[in-house]
Each structure stands twice: as structure tokens, then as C-alpha cells.
């Protein structure tokens, strides 16, 4: 790389690049995102493959590996020039398609285009995608467009124009004034105007000053600064150079979080290239301006993002914050006592644009008090998550619904958490509030570094507050005790509330502690740690109260409130919940049903979300207790309890309901029935009138496996095995069969037809019916999903093997139990008949006739059943006072007739 020795050199280099057509919009170019998330999705392999394929195909096209393009969720993302097609989720094997369709054929690859749903027209270009439509990019202006490891790209796209302008035509004071006039507010947290901070530093009396960029992005779920450092490092360098020029500093330090190895790599490359080309170092561009930048890696402490702690860390001390004053900008405040100007990465990245285009241009976007844009990391329960840069003054609704695409599953919005662990939760009523630094502060939250976590009705607000507080608690440096001990105490109270042991007064205690910590902590961490709790109490107090008073968590998140149950009547044993459960809490009982082991269940609701039938229900917890009258101290419950919840006292055994997991083991083991429970079955989610409580089911006779039981009961009444099977199958089809698996649904239908053929000895009934039944039975045993199906198969197969002879007899028309109506006849035994005429009166089918004989007197009237008309309904048998109506098998009748 040739060194640039003057401003003119830079100018002519830029002109040369323009002539050569570097990054010219009309050339064929593939931009592949190689940000951290896309890398995890194999984008580097895609790049290799594309490079190889482009070479072999002979097409002239440039491949650029860019930084994060924003829509990480759909990575790897690829944009193609000159058309501007936007592809998402591009696998390496799609590279040939891209080359042959788009590069050669100038057509899009249809299935790689983004579409919201299958029925919708795909979006061809970035500007058609709702996620990008409302965005306005200043800080991220080059992200996704250039190769971050190539300074030439940055220069070609207009980079280093601002420093060129400043060095050529502006005094340091003019640069400072421009930033001040633009009212650029710090993007790292508090929103302090950068121009004023610069001025402070400039005016403090010291020969040497230091420019520091704070890249210790520690908020969980925020990655704006990372994207800039990874995707456009030179704009950060240029911003720092402008600051150094304005305040008269010669040394710069970028403090980068150690979890960002890629950012460190890209920044080092950028610094090296800038030094080589003469944009950093001594006598920059021949103007006499000296500036060097070095990188300091953090070592994994969140508190080091705080300005004074960061200084301690740079100096090589423990990362303890220091009392202010002296402020960083004053003598004695910065590293080794030199005044320092510390700004956030995004703040610096905005500066070149302001200097190049002027403060007036910058003031046109955003609101009066917060001009410009802000980058947010949109995460949580929105459809499109990722990095968005929007003008200040946009409403939350626009961000969440227009850009984010709304809530996942179109659930109900609950709140949005801004500002990371130091921020607060904003409820629905403020969705239409135009957001900037001041409006957010007014409603109790902060802009913070730009984390934005969207919560829906499935998130418990207390749980979220607990999550953020526990983060701050574990990150407290421990220097001041309100922060160290106070956050721990608050966390314990929250722990108590969410585990169902909250007490009256806990909310007030939280508020008191929170305010105390806020007022007496040294640094921003302690001062803001209680914020998530305090704002949620302010806006969602009733949810806290529900947890404490009603022991009820409306989002069903908090463990210890509510209990998950598997309703065996609905479950068809697809095992999805078993696969989903991270704790292996879903088990199969000895009798083949699934149940949730309450001891293992952590109420993560993975099964609840995955069950296709809604068989998992959330219910209020029962309370188990021991009836002292019945208990005879056999200790079996103590032995069986896995969590040691049963305690021995001087007056007997008691169950400690705080420890008890309500698994029902003791209930099942107690011989005396001394263990009882209160208040089971109030449904919290999924309305259903039926109560099921596995574990307790045998004793309580709760209708869990009743359907099959009932069938067995009915079947027992029959004697003929064929009738037994027919009844079973018919009732199974009527009742418990769900019809989901073929061996069961088709099998039982076929079995029913075959059995009917056998009992009625229909035409064609024969040996093959019996064989077919056997196959059906074994198929069902093997292939039915649920126990009900398998049991039915088993029943059929058992009865077939035990009474095969009887089935065969039916084929020749004999039912030895005389139950199969087609093989039997009703006959009046003349010896018993007293000729009362009852049967004649009762028969609905007029099948009984009285035949008077002419030669005999009237009392010799002869009663007879017309076999053709008789339906064997059995009515006459019920009314015959002497039992003269007999059932005989047809075959015997024939024999009878013969004799």
C-alpha cells in the first residue's frame, strides 16, 4: 500500500478508485455477511464455495465479506449487485444456483428471497423488507456494504472524507463546535452531549490527553457496538481521529470486551492498514497532526464498562470504579492522571457523518433534544430480531410492529425492556410515545446502550426483573456494600416471591431497598441495578401482588406457583414432550401412561409449548397433608419422599409444603389413606371440566383409564368369545379410539366387519376371517402409538388364541353360549307353555302366533314363533312366567327336527 503524504494524495487516491470502479454500483458483486451470527451459520464456507464457483464459471463478479447486515436471525444473508436482490438463509450448496440464476441469468433465486409467509409475494430487494424499510442508517452506514478488513473499500465509499475536510479547512475549535451544534448525545448510556464532554477535556490543563472508545459492551443481548467494530472499524477510527484533532490528543485507546475476538481482529487489521497508508501515526497526511490508536482487551467484567472502572482496568488494576470528581475529562481523572475523553463506539461512529455533512444535516433527523439515530438490538418475543437503526422520535409501536413484525405467534404484548440491566420495563400504554433520551427517562427507563427486549403475555414480569437483577448482583464489583449486599437481599426477596413464599410487605421492602441502593452506591451499576425492579413495581404492581397473595403467576413462568400436568385422556403418546423436556421429567408409568414427575419438573413449559394436543395443563398446586387420626407411623411416606419433605415431629408426621413437590408418591404409598390433599384441580390454563391427577389416580378413582375399564366391564357380561370381541371392538371404536394411527383405526374397523361376518355367518365367512383377525391384532400390538390401541390388540389376540375353536364353531353356525343371534332360534317348549298369551301380547314384531286346532278344544291352542319374523330381541323371554321360551342353536334344532 502506498503511503499517503498529503491531503491531495488522499483525494487523488479516491479519484483513482472511482475511475477504477471500486465498489461501483453497476458491477456484479456478491456481498456475504460474515458477522458472528452468520459465521456460526457457515457463511465462511459459503464464501469459499462462491469464490471457487465464480472462478470455474468464468463470470466476472466480486465477492465481499461484510460485517453484520442486521437480520442475523435469517443468516447467512447475501445481497447481490447490480440488481440488489436480498437472499436469506443461504447454504453453501446454493452457490451454484446463485451464479447460474442471478449472475448469469439475471434472475432471482426464488426460494432464497425473503417472504413473510408462503402465500405472500417475496421481497426482491432490501427496501421491500419491512425489517429494513423504516430504518435510517447513520452509525451503521457502511455496515454490510464494505469489507471491514479492506481500507480501500472504506475510502472508496467516502471514508476519511471527514478527517480530510477537518484537516484541510477546519480548526479544532470548528470541529468541536460542529459536534456541539449537532447536539450529538452519548450513545453509551446516559446521553450526555458529546460536544460538551469534548470541550471539558479540551479545556482541562494538560499537555497530553487521551481519547478512549468504550467497546466493553456487557449488556446481555446487546451487540450494536460489536457490529460496528466488526463491520466498519474505520468509521470508529475516523471518529476518534476527529475527536483527537478537536481536543488536541495524540493517543487513543479502544477498550474491547474480551468475548469479541472478531472485533479485536478487525480493529487490529484496520489500525495496521491505517498506519501503513499514513492515516494514523506521525504527521498524518503531512499536516503535522499526530495520533496513534491501540487496543486494550477487557478480561470479562461488566463493571469495566463504567468509565472510571475502565480507567482502573487500563491501568492494570482491579476494575473498581473510582469516586468522581475528578471526572475523566479533568486532570487526574483519566488513565494515569491524563484527562481523557471517553465515548461509546456508536457515538464516535456518528462523528464522521456529522463533520462531512454538517450539523444542520444531522439536526434534521430525530427530535429537537435528541437529534440523529439510535441503533437498537431488538430481541425477545418479536418475529424479526436483529440490529435496527432508527431515527430518534420513532414510536415503540413502529419498532416492534413495523420493523419487528409484531409479537411471535401474535400473542399479546406485555412490555418492552430497554436499557439492559440498568433500564426499565415500559408497559403497553407508552407504545405510542416517541422515544428519545428524555422521554424514556421521564417514564422511568433509559435509552441505555440500546438493548430492547420485547416481552409478551408469556413472560412473567417478576421473573424478568429477577433475571436482570441477578445479572447486576453477580456483576457487582463489591466495593460498596449497598450494592453488594443490597442487590443480594433484593434478589432473595424476589426469589421468595417467585417460589411462592412471598409475604405481605415484600413489595414495600423491595422499594425501600431499591431506593436506598440507588442513592448510596458509588457507580452507575449500583445506582441503576434496582431500576428493572422499581419500574416493574411501578407499572405491574398487581402482578407482584398476585404472586404474593394468590400464589399465582399469570404467565405460568415462576416455579413453585402452579403445576404442570399431563392429561392422559388427551395424550396420544407422541413423545414430543419427552424429547422436549430438558429435565427428563416426563415418564411412562408401569401401566403405560405418560406422567410428569413433579420432582424433576422445573416448569420450563417446554412440553406445554410442544404438545400438539394441549394435553399438558397448568393447574393450581394442591396442598398435601397427613391426617393424624389415620396415620400409624409406618414411615413408608418418609422413605418414599424424594425431597425429604416429610418431617417427624413430637406430635406426628407433617409435610413441609415449602419443600413438597406434590408428586403424589406418599399418597400412593400410604396404606392407611392418611395422606390427603386440598384444592386440587383448579385450572389455571386450558379450561377443561375434567380433573386428572396422575399419581393420585388409583385411589381417587379419577376417570383416567375408565374408558377401557368400562369396556372390559361390558365385555365380562358376555360369554361368547366372538361376542366379547365384537363388543370390545365396537365400544372401542365408539369411545376411546382417536383414529390417529392406521393399524388401530383401519384395523378395528376391519375387525368389526370380520367379526360381524362370523357372528352372523354371512356369506363367504370362513377361515380367512379368523386369520385376518389375528394379523390385525398383532399389527395393533406392534404399531399402535398409544397404550389403548396396543391393549385392544392384545385383548383380541388373547381371545383368539384361547378360544380359536369357538370361533371355528361359529363358522359352522354354532355358538355354544347361544349369544350370537343368527345361529340361534327361539322356540316355545309346549310342555312348559301354559298358553297365557303374554308373549303374544308383548312381541313387537307379531312373530308369535296362536294356532287353534280344529280337532282339539280351545285350551289346546298351540303357540308358535314364526322364525322368519322373529328378531330374537328377547322381550318374550322376559315376560314368559314359566320360562317356556328356550333358546336353541339352529344346528341342534335341525338335529331336534330329525329325531
Amino acid at each position, binding site marked *: 500500500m502506498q503511503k499517503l503524504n498529503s491531503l491531495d494524495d488522499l483525494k487523488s487516491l479516491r479519484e483513482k478508485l472511482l475511475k477504477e470502479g471500486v465498489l461501483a454500483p453497476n458491477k456484479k458483486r456478491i456481498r456475504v455477511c460474515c458477522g458472528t451470527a452468520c459465521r*456460526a451459520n457457515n457463511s465462511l464456507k459459503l464464501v469459499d464455495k462462491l469464490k471457487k464457483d465464480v472462478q470455474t464459471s468464468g463470470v466476472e463478479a466480486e465477492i465481499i465479506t461484510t460485517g453484520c447486515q442486521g437480520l442475523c436471525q435469517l443468516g447467512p444473508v447475501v445481497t447481490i449487485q447490480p440488481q440488489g436482490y436480498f437472499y436469506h438463509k443461504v447454504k453453501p450448496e446454493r452457490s451454484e444456483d446463485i451464479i447460474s440464476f442471478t449472475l448469469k441469468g439475471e434472475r432471482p433465486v426464488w426460494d432464497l428471497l425473503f417472504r413473510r409467509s408462503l402465500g405472500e409475494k417475496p421481497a426482491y430487494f432490501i427496501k421491500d423488507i419491512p425489517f429494513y424499510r423504516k430504518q435510517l442508517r447513520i452509525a451503521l452506514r457502511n455496515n454490510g456494504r464494505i469489507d471491514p478488513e479492506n481500507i480501500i473499500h472504506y475510502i472508496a465509499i467516502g471514508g476519511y472524507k471527514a478527517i480530510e475536510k477537518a484537516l484541510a479547512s477546519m480548526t479544532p475549535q470548528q470541529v468541536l463546535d460542529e459536534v456541539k451544534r449537532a447536539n450529538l448525545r452519548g450513545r453509551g448510556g446516559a446521553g450526555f452531549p458529546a460536544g460538551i464532554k469534548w470541550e471539558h477535556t479540551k479545556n482541562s490543563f494538560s499537555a*497530553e490527553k*487521551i481519547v478512549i472508545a468504550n467497546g466493553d459492551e456487557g449488556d*446481555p443481548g446487546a451487540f450494536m457496538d460489536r457490529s460496528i467494530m466488526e463491520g466498519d472499524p474505520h468509521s470508529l477510527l475516523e471518529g476518534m481521529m476527529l475527536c483527537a484533532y478537536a481536543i488536541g490528543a495524540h493517543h487513543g485507546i479502544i477498550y474491547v470486551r*474480551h468475548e469479541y475476538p472478531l472485533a479485536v481482529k478487525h480493529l487490529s487489521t484496520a489500525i495496521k492498514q491505517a498506519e501503513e497508508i499514513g492515516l494514523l501515526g506521525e504527521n498524518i497526511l503531512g499536516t503535522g497532526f499526530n495520533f496513534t490508536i491501540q487496543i486494550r482487551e477487557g478480561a470479562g467484567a461488566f463493571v469495566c464498562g463504567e468509565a472510571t472502572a475502565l480507567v482502573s482496568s487500563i491501568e492494570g*488494576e*482491579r476494575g473498581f470504579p473510582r469516586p468522581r470528581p475528578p471526572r475523566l475529562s479533568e486532570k487526574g481523572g483519566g488513565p494515569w492522571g*491524563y484527562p481523557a475523553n471517553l465515548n461509546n463506539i456508536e457515538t464516535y461512529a456518528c462523528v464522521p457523518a456529522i463533520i462531512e455533512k454538517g450539523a444542520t444535516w444531522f439536526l434534521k433527523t430525530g427530535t429537537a433534544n435528541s437529534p440523529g439515530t439510535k441503533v437498537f438490538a431488538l430481541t425477545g418475543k418479536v418475529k424479526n430480531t436483529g440490529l435496527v437503526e432508527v431515527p430518534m422520535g420513532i414510536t415503540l409501536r413502529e419498532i416492534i410492529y413495523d420493523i419487528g413484525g409484531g409479537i411471535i405467534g401474535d400473542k399479546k404484548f406485555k412490555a418492552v425492556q430497554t436499557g439492559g440491566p440498568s433500564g426499565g420495563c415500559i408497559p403497553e400504554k407508552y407504545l405510542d410515545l416517541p422515544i428519545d433520551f428524555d422521554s424514556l427517562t421521564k417514564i422511568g427507563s433509559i435509552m441505555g446502550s440500546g438493548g430492547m427486549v420485547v416481552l409478551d403475555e408469556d413472560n412473567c414480569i417478576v421473573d424478568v426483573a429477577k*433475571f436482570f437483577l441477578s445479572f447486576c448482583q453477580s456483576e457487582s464489583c463489591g466495593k460498596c456494600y449497598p450494592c453488594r449486599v443490597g442487590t443480594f437481599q433484593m434478589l432473595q426477596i424476589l426469589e421468595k416471591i417467585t417460589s411462592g413464599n412471598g409475604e405481605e410487605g415484600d413489595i414495600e421492602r423491595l422499594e425501600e431497598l431499591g431506593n436506598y441502593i440507588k442513592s448510596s452506591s458509588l457507580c452507575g451499576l449500583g445506582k441503576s441495578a434496582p431500576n428493572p425492579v422499581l419500574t416493574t413495581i411501578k407499572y405491574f404492581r398487581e402482578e407482584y401482588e398476585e404472586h404474593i397473595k394468590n400464589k399465582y403467576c399469570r404467565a405460568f413462568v415462576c416455579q413453585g406457583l402452579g403445576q404442570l400436568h399431563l392429561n392422559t385422556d388427551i395424550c396420544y403418546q407422541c413423545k414430543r414432550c419427552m424429547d422436549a423436556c430438558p*429435565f427428563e421429567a416426563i415418564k411412562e408409568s408401569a401401566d403405560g401412561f405418560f406422567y410428569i414427575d413433579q420432582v424433576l419438573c422445573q416448569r420450563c413449559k417446554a412440553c406445554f409449548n410442544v404438545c400438539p394436543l394441549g394435553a399438558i395443563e397448568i393447574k393450581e398446586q394442591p396442598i398435601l397433608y397427613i391426617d393424624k387420626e389415620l396415620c400409624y407411623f409406618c414411615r413408608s411416606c418418609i422413605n418414599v419422599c424424594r425431597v425429604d419433605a416429610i418431617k417427624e415431629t413430637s406430635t406426628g408426621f407433617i409435610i413441609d409444603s415449602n419443600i413438597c413437590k406434590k408428586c403424589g408418591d406418599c399418597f400412593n404409598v400410604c396404606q392407611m389413606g392418611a395422606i390427603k390433599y386440598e384444592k386440587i384441580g383448579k385450572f389455571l390454563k386450558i379450561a377443561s371440566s375434567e380433573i386428572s391427577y396422575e399419581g393420585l389416580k388409583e385411589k381417587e378413582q379419577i376417570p383416567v383409564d375408565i374408558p377401557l375399564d368400562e369396556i372390559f366391564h361390558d365385555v365380562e357380561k358376555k360369554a361368547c368369545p366372538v361376542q366379547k370381541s365384537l363388543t370390545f371392538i365396537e365400544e372401542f371404536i365408539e369411545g376411546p379410539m382417536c383414529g390417529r394411527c392406521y393399524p388401530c383405526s383401519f384395523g378395528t374397523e376391519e375387525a368389526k366387519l370380520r367379526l360381524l361376518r362370523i357372528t352372523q355367518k354371512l356369506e363367504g365367512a370362513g377361515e380367512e376371517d379368523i386369520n385376518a383377525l389375528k394379523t390385525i391384532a398383532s399389527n395393533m400390538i406392534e404399531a399402535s402409538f398409544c397404550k389403548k390401541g396396543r391393549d385392544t390388540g392384545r385383548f383380541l389376540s388373547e381371545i383368539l388364541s384361547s378360544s380359536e375353536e369357538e370361533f371355528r364353531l361359529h363358522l359352522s353356525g354354532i355358538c355354544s353360549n347361544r349369544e350370537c343371534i343368527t345361529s340361534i332360534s327361539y322356540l316355545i317348549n309346549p310342555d312348559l307353555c301354559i298358553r297365557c298369551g303374554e308373549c303374544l301380547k308383548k312381541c313387537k314384531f307379531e312373530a308369535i302366533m296362536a294356532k287353534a286346532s280344529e280337532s282339539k278344544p280351545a285350551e289346546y291352542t298351540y303357540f308358535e314363533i314364526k322364525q322368519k319374523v322373529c328378531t330374537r330381541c328377547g322381550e318374550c323371554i322376559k315376560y314368559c312366567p314359566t320360562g317356556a321360551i328356550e333358546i336353541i342353536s339352529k344346528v341342534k334344532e335341525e338335529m331336534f327336527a330329525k329325531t
Partner: protein
Amino acid sequence: MDIEAVSENSQIGSIGSLLNSKQKKRGILIHLLQQIQEENGYIPEEIVKKLSSKLSLSMSEIFSVASFYKMFRFTPRGKKLVKVCLGTACYVRGSKKVLNTLENEFQIKSGETSSDLSITLETVGCVGCCGLAPVTTVNDEVVGDITSSGKIEGLIKFIRKN
């Protein structure tokens, strides 16, 4: 790393021109510790001893700094550093199962190193790739979406690979 041969001036960089020798020595401490850990996988005591005489800092001072930061480790680390994400998103998608499988497979508990120093198993909060949950990192390389059983075998193979 040869602690004796470390040059303060090249370690501290250009800003060293503003500092006296004592400040320089302090200033490079964290940077050196990072290099030591990078090289050895942990901070061995004997190197801290050398460091202490080189930088004229007491050993307790060095340990007090090193123990403040989460990244430093004082016991040897395996060749493969496997971190299973137990952040919220990953936890609910079954990262505990991943952890259990790895624990059984390599016969070590989370936080431990296998006796042949081939693998160290750790857990982390969130690595920022929640969309790909459950996530595990192997020597800083992110492996995502380890839900199906086939994938976990792939992960094990990946860890085993030299």
C-alpha cells in the same frame, strides 16, 4: 513465553511515551496475563512468580488483579474448551441435556478438565446466538442448534477431532 525477555515498551505501545516505568509495568499486567493464559490455557503459579519479579509487583497483587476478572483461570485447561450455553433461551431448548450427554461422554463434570487434558467443560451465560439455541462453543467456534440426537454426536465427534 519468556517473561524475562518481555519488553515493556513494545507491550505498552505508543502510549508508553507518557508513562514512567512503574506505570508501564502495571499497565501491561493484564495484557501479559492474557497472553500467558492464551499460551498455557491457564495462569501457572511459577509464571506468576517470574512475572512478579519482572514487574516488581508482589504475587498477591498479581493474583488480586487476576482473580477480579472472570476470564482468568488458575488450573490447567484442556486442549478443547467446550462451553455449553445455559442462558435462558438455550436452557429451555434442552441445553441441560447437551451438558449431561457431554458429561457422560467425557466422564467429567462441568467446570472440570479431563485427566488427559484433552477437554475442559464449562458453562456460559449467553453467547449472543440465541436464535441458534441450544448453543455450544468449542474453542470459540460456535456450534448451534444441537437439538436432534444426530447433531450431538456430530458435536462429540467435532470435539474429539484432534
